[in-house]
Structure formats: C-alpha cells, structure tokens
C-alpha cells in the first residue's frame, strides 16, 4: 500500500488554517497538535521483504543470519534466533555486512596487473582469460618446480574450496592465520593436555558458570555474539568476574575485580595460582585421581612458583593470588579460567596456555555444569574424493567449530618422505622444525618467511583467498619480499587491500550475501548444520569460491575433486547423506540435534570424561608425554619477559566491538562508528612528554626503528608503562577510499618474534617510544 493513500485533504486544510492563525494564538498550538493524535499521519512504513538464511562472514564466529531482501537486494541483516552461535542477536559488524556488498570500491570483475607488481595498475579481463591464465601459470610452476611450490593462504568463511584445490594440485602448503597469528598456543594446550578442542566456537557453559577468571579475555570487545551474550547471562546469574589486563577495557568495567597486570606476565600469575591450588589441596581430588596423570610431577614443578615469587613480577599482590585460588575452589567446578582469544603475545604463550588448561583441569571443569560441556555433533559426511596424490593433507575437520586441532596423520621427520611426498614449507607438524604446530592450519607467519627466503624449498606461486598479509601479520618487509619474490600471485577477495594489490590476477569473489557456500557444521550444546543462501542478486561480475575453484580444477585436470555440477548440488548431496536436503534446510536455515545434558555434562551423570590425548593416553596429562619427547615440556616453566627501559613502553593492541581485524576499516558503516584508532597513554607519561588529548604523536619501535603517527587519547585506563591501540588501522591502499591513511598500523609495530615451542608469533614483545609528532 502506498504511504500516500493515507493522505487526507481535509486534515491538510485544517492544518493550513491553523498555521495562519498561529501567530495570534501560538500558546494554543500544543493542544491543537495533541488533538490530532489519532488522525492518520504520514509517518514511516515498513516495506515488504522476503527472508533467507545465512551465516555471517564479518568475523570468524559465524553467527546465524536471517536476511531481509526487497527487489533482489538485501536490506537488513537480522540474527537467526535458532542459531546457537548468536541466538538471534547480531553485532554492529554483522549489521554492517550490507556495506560489504554495496561497497562502491568492491572488486567487481576479474583483472590482470598491467604495471609493476604492487603498483595497483589493472586491466579488466574476462573470466575465461583470468581462469586460463591462472591455470596455465600454476601448471607451468608445477612442471618446473613441483606442486609443493604453491602456497595457499586463506582467511574467510569461504576459503574451504581453495584448500581443496591446493591439496588436489598437490601442495601441502595451505595455511590460515588462525593458528600462528591468533589462537594456536591455547588450542594446542588444550589438545595436547586433555585431547579436547576448546577454541573456535568455545564449549563453555557460560550461563551456569559462577566464577570467570579472565586473563586478558576482553569478551565484550573481542566480541562473539553468542559467547558474549552467554557470558553476560552468566554474570547476571551471579558469576563473579576477575579480569586481568594492562588496559581498563569494557570487560574491566563489567568485572567485580580488575588488575592491571604487568604486560606479558600472565604466566607467572597462573603458575602461582597452580602452586596455591595444589599446596592448599583446593583441586578436584577424585577427578585428579581417576582421570589425570603426572600430578606429582606437576606438583614438584610448581613448587617454586609461590605467590610471593609472582607478586613482584606481575604486580598482583600475593594475598590476592591466594584469595582467588580459594574463591575459585569454593565455586568449582562451575568456574573457568578464560584464555585470551588471540594468544600470540609473550615469548612463552604455550606455557601460559598450558597453565590455563592445567588450572581448569585442577578445578575439574570438564564435562561439568558451569564448566566446559561436551558438544553434540551433527554428522554431515564429507563427499568422497580421490586420494591427494602428492602431499599428506591434514583433513579440514568441520565438527566442533572450525578449529579442531586433532592430531594430523602426518609423518613428521622429513621435508619429503620416502614416497616423495613433501612436508610443509612452514615447518608446521614437521619434526626438527615446528612439530607442535598444527599442520591443518599451518604457521602463516612462517609460510610468509618461507616465501620471502625461498627456504626450505622454493615456493614460486601464491594463491590467497581473503586476508591481508600486511595488516594481520607483522614485519611488512617480509610480506612485501614474499609478494615480490614469487613468480605468480593470484588473489581472490571481495574487497581491495594492501596484499591483493600485489596480485598478477585478481579474482572477484561474490560477497557472502550473494552466494551459496559449503555447509557450516558445528557443535554446541546442540549439534547443528547451517546453510548460507544468496540474499540478493549479484551486483557485479563476481563468482563464488566453489565455482572459481571448480573451474580452475577443470582446467588443470583436477575436476574429480569437484565432482558436482554446482554448489547447490554439492550441498544437496551432503545434506541427503545426513538425512535431509537443501530444500529442507533452506526453509529453516539450520538443522539441529537438541541439547542433551547426559552428553553435554557426562560427569554430572556418573560417567567419566572420554579422553584420548595426542600422546595416546586415556587420561589428562599434566605433563604430556609427547612434550617430554620433544623437550617442550619446559614450556611450563616461566621465562623472564622483556621490560621497557626508562623511556620505553610495552606496545599492546586489541579489539573494539565494532571492527574486525584489518577487514572492516573500509566499511562505511563500521567506519562511521570509528574512522581511526588512537593511542592510549597514561596522563603521567603523557605530561612528561608534553602530550595532550587529541595531539598527533609518533610511536617508534625501538628495535626496528619502524614508526607510526597517531592521535593521543590521554587516559587513566592504561598502565603507565604501556601504550595501546585498536588493531587493524593504518591502511595505505588508495583503493580503500574510507580507510586509507586513517590511524596507525599496530601491525607495523608489533614484534615478529616467535614462541620457541610452537612457532606462533610473539607480537607483544615490542618496546616503543612515544613523542610529539
């Protein structure tokens, strides 16, 4: 119905008369206005829309969506109330997804580079030419150097077909930043000690938890809707929150207790906590006796880590450490020691992660209400594919979120084995290099290094599916050298960025609102499988990942790895094997197996926890046998961390609730909320340097000499020896018309050091100076 059909001429006439009379009786106007309350008015109308389902691509939590569309265009993104990742709520980033699709500077059609690599000069070409060129270049490199000379770096909810294509091509060198640049050390800690995966979509019984000890887990700003909502519900249900962070974040504002712990020293605090829990016998005795091993060894190893030892290191008083241990024991097992989401910070993240896993185990949280639940999994079989001939591939396991650190079935002791199959160039899962690093996701940081240095063997071609090597890593020199060294670089993405600027061929991906993708198979309290459907007609000459990869595979005689004619056929095939169909799931967006307390919380029902560790044990290993074999059990011991000199600061960075990594700064809706980042600095050091609020300052990494300019936020919300900035700013790609030149790049200042046991990055080791610009 047109809004104008409500138009009432008589009311208009009445109004006109009123207006002319107004000057004489202005005071009488309000009552006249009120008299019209129930007259028809021309206010806003709700326009008719249709709804389809999807899951989000704005971060990696992947919330379920219900998208409203009108006239073939998506107009509003709502949450799918049935989806356990978000229960119907959607954050600012998720709401801003529309502006990915409608971005005027999207990659709209295939292009080839015509200028110098990285100069950003492009020519539009046809899909035929683009795909032919990619297939020819990759085939040439395979012929000349072997299939392992291709590296694939993916970063997005649609990267899966690219991994399959690369594996079919014959390379083991596929990687995603999730391990080496983000969650690796904590994922590994849980896996190697307990054999359980506890990252990705975390399986914490947040609503029933009674005590959250949050080690820099800024859950309100490094925000995942379902997790954050569950935590807020838990807090509303009476959970105590004790939060540690050098910066007073929003999470600190929500905490019952906040400690501005000295940067990089969480490990010392945790070791002292373990010491108290063991010494005062505050642990879950039956559980420790029945389901764990090496407890006595652990006890001996933490003997020296007294609260008095930790206090001067961490600046957390010894009596506070003791009190926290006792308080938690009182509430156990409904307690949780929360690791930070990104755990690539100190020079011993692995030890920090192990300490967290050990504490959670001592409190007996596994399989208990208010602790950690066992997820239910929706079984959706993968399609059957021919063997990957040239490389051992750690299969991408989808159940339990997308972050399963299951032990890959890969021999670890050669660069290439007796069958001539190559091992990973980044050394992930390779004996003698980074045997503990997950070979499914690899070490993206080390893959860049392998490309830049062409070691241990030549990598001559690079394919990227999303991501931004510059701003999501550190050390721009290595990234640039890698991008300039390879013979051929093909980039697939939706939006432009500094990395894909270097591509020889740019393949434009359809945005996540314009396409189907492979299924989202997850495990929460309930098992689920969710679908992504197109919510709008494609705006440009783009294609989806699966179609691009199939068309490339067909050109390289690898079509057998993409046996379906279309992505819809693939989805229908997989769903039919799971007892449903594409048609059925499209009506509801998500299929679920209901939650079941007996499965979620086996230990509440007298059932022991099912355990199988990577070392092959059926008990939780406080000191895992595999680590001892590798000499990495020493990770448990505290390592002294860098301290800033007289004029230096610890360089820290983190998240805000309305930006994701380095990928939303050019989104006009999220940018409208925050266009540039600022430098948090305490009033005391600011005053010493004559720095005032809003003033431009220069931050310099004292070891590399790299510097960034940024405006100051002078605040007591940060320690005096620490500075902070929001991650992901400082873009320089001129195609990024909104983000270009805004704020400073923390990634240009963060450290390129590595965790000595895992190979993941130690980004927090940088020390910087700050001066007026």
């Amino acid at each position: 119905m047109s809004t104008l059909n409500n138009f009432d001429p008589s009311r208009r006439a009445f109004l006109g008369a009123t207006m002319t009379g107004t000057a004489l009786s202005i005071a009488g106007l309000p009552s006249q206005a009120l008299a019209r309350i129930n007259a028809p008015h021309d206010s806003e109308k709700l326009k008719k829309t249709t709804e389809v389902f999807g899951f989000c691509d704005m971060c990696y939590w992947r919330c379920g969506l219900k998208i409203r569309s009108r006239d073939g265009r998506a107009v509003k993104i709502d949450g799918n109330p049935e989806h356990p990742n978000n229960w119907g709520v959607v954050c600012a980033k998720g709401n801003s997804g529309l502006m990915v699709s409608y971005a005027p500077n999207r990659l709209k059609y295939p292009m080839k580079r015509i200028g110098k690599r990285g100069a950003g000069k492009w020519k539009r070409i046809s899909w035929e030419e683009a795909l032919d060129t990619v297939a020819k270049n990759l085939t040439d490199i395979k012929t000349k150097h072997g299939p392992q000379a291709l590296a694939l770096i993916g970063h997005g909810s649609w990267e899966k077909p690219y991994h399959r294509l690369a594996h079919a091509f014959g390379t083991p060198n596929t990687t995603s930043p999730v391990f080496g640049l983000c969650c690796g050390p904590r994922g590994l800690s849980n896996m190697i000690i307990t054999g359980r995966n506890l990252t990705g979509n975390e399986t914490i019984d947040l609503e029933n938890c009674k005590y959250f000890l949050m080690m820099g887990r800024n859950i309100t700003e490094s925000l995942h809707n379902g997790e954050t909502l569950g935590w807020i519900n838990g807090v509303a249900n009476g959970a105590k929150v004790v939060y540690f962070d050098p910066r007073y974040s929003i999470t600190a504002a929500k905490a019952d207790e906040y400690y501005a712990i000295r940067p990089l020293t969480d490990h010392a605090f945790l070791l002292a906590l373990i010491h108290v829990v063991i010494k005062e016998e505050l642990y879950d005795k039956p559980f420790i006796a029945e389901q764990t091993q090496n407890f006595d060894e652990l006890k001996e190893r933490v003997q020296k880590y007294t609260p008095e030892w930790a206090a001067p290191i961490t600046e957390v008083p010894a009596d506070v450490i003791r009190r926290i241990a006792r308080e938690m024991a009182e509430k156990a097992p409904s307690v949780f020691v929360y690791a930070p989401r990104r755990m690539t910070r100190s020079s011993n993240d692995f030890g920090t992660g192990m300490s967290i896993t050990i504490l959670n185990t001592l409190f007996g949280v596994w399989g208990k209400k208010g602790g950690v639940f066992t997820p239910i999994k929706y079984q959706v079989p993968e399609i059957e594919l021919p063997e990957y001939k040239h490389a051992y591939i750690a299969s991408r396991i989808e159940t339990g979120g997308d972050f399963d650190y299951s032990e890959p079935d890969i021999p670890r002791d050669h660069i290439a084995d007796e069958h001539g199959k190559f091992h990973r160039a980044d050394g992930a899962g390779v004996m003698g290099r980074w045997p503990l690093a997950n070979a499914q996701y690899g070490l993206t940081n080390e893959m860049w290094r392998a490309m830049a240095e062409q070691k241990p063997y030549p990598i001559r071609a690079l394919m990227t599916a999303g991501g931004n090597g510059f701003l999501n890593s550190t050390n721009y020199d290595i990234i640039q050298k890698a991008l300039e060294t390879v013979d051929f670089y093909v980039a697939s993405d939706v939006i432009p960025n500094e990395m894909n600027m270097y591509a020889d061929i740019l393949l434009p991906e359809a945005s996540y609102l314009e396409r189907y993708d492979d299924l989202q198979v997850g495990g929460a309290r309930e098992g689920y499988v969710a679908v992504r459907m197109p919510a709008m007609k494609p705006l440009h000459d783009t294609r989806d990942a699966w179609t691009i990869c199939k068309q490339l595979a067909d050109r390289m005689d690898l079509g057998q790895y993409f046996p379906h004619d279309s992505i819809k056929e693939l989805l229908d095939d997989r769903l039919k094997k799971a007892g449903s169909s594409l048609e059925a799931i499209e009506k509801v967006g998500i299929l679920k197996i209901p939650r079941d307390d007996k499965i979620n919380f086996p230990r509440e029902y007298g059932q022991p926890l099912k355990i199988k560790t990577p070392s092959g044990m059926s008990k939780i290993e406080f000191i895992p046998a595999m680590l001892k074999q590798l000499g990495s059990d020493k990770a448990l011991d505290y390592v002294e961390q860098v301290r800033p000199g007289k004029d230096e600061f610890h360089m820290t960075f983190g998240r805000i609730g309305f930006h994701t990594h380095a990928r939303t700064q050019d989104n006009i809706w999220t940018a409208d909320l925050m266009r540039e980042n600022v430098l948090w600095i305490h009033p005391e050091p600011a005053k010493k340097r004559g720095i005032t609020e809003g003033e431009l300052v220069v931050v310099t990494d004292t070891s590399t000499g790299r510097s960034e300019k940024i405006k100051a936020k002078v605040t007591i919300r940060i320690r005096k020896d620490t500075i902070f900035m929001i991650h992901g700013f400082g873009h320089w790609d001129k195609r990024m018309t909104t983000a270009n030149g805004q704020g400073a790049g923390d990634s240009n200042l963060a450290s390129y050091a590595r965790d000595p046991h895992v190979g993941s990055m130690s980004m927090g080791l940088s020390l910087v100076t700050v001066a007026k610009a």
Partner: protein
Amino acid sequence: MTKHYVMLADTTRCINCKACVVACRAEWETPLGFSRDWVKEVELEKADGTPQVMLFPGRCQHCDDAPCIESCPSGAAFKREDGMVLQDNCICSGCELCVPACPYEARWLNPETSKINKCTYCQPRIDEGLAPACVLTCVGRALIFGDKNDPESEVSRLLNDKDKKWERLTTDTVNIGPNHYYYTDGVALPDEVMPKQPEKHIANKVLENVVNPVGALGVGGMLATFIGAGLMKLMSRRNEVNTDNNQEEK
C-alpha cells in the same frame, strides 16, 4: 486498556558494541554521520583514582510532556495514545525548532529529506507485532521494550522488581516524564547523561517577550519567517504529493 510503551536499558548488560546504532541505521536508512540512537561511554575516575566506565544506550525518550511537540509550529511532532512521540513527514517543514527543544538531543534534520528525524520506537515494526530493531539485535539483551500497562509484560515485571531500581534521566529542572528507564545497579547516574536545559520553545519565548515589545517584534518577525517558510515547503510538498498520488492511481 491503552498501551503505554516504554524502553528499558539495563546498563550492566550494555557493552557499547553499537549493534543498536547500526541496526537502526539499516532499518531506517539514516544518513552517515547521523543516528537515531547512540551509546554514551562515560569515563569516570573513582575516589581512589582508579577508572570507571559506564555505558548508556539512548534515543528519544518519548516524554509524556514532550517539549518538541510544543515547539513544533506545524504540528508535525505528535504523541500517540500509546506514548510514542512521532513525526509526520508530510507536515514537517524542517524548521528545526524542535531540535534545541529536546533536552536529550534526540532530534536532527535529515539532510537527505530536509525533514526532522528521530527514534520512533520503531513504530511501524511495533504496529506489526515486531520488536524494535535495536532491541532485536542487542547483543547483551540490555534493551527491553514493551507495554508498561500490561502487567504480564517483561517491562512490567522488571519495573516492578523490588530488587532493581529503574531510574529515568531527569533533574530538578528537567523532568518531563521520559519513557525510557535505566538500571545501573545502584551506581549514581553521571552528569554526562543527564538532560540539558532545553532552549526555550517559541511559545514560552512569546509569553516572555510580551513584556518586551521590541523583543516581541523580533520574535514575531522570526515567527513569520519560519511559518512562511514552513508554509511554502508544505505547499510545494503538497503539490508533489498530489502528483505522486495521481501517478500511484494510474
């Protein structure tokens, strides 16, 4: 019984994620740089020198005694029986007299339409039985909307909870019956979120200026200008509307 809509904001559940702001933008296509709702992050220093942060989601407070309605010379601002303060787009001349009248700074001129824009409590959605866009998307479920006159409603249950003190943003001088409640778990409302003293609306100004004929002349002239401009706009809009209407019927 007549409905009485109110919004509740449990600030202990708000995390300043701005989901409400973007959801509103998407729902009502507000131009960049403007928003019908907001979240104020108030940074405080406690007596012991440690920081404190409070978060206040806000929007039009749909006041019982709304000064914007009184200040509107065209009658475009009106209040429905269910409490919603709304704006009639056809009548609004974009004169902006209501903008300074609002002590909560909830009104602004939309540069794309030259009409006043503000939160409507998502009236078109409410009328179809849907939740306001901000409430639907709120990550912390900090926003709760409903009918205060319905004893079974969530808002009634919360407002009647004796353990929870729900407050309104009012002061001794500005107390105009806002229909937006806040829960802070006992922490005092900071000055930063309190209503500002509204600039006096025209009716008051006229009354005051009766005593001062020179001033009255000035205001009279101003009024004539505003009303004239408003009328011109109204007439041209009416012509447009008529044209559109004709096209619609074809």
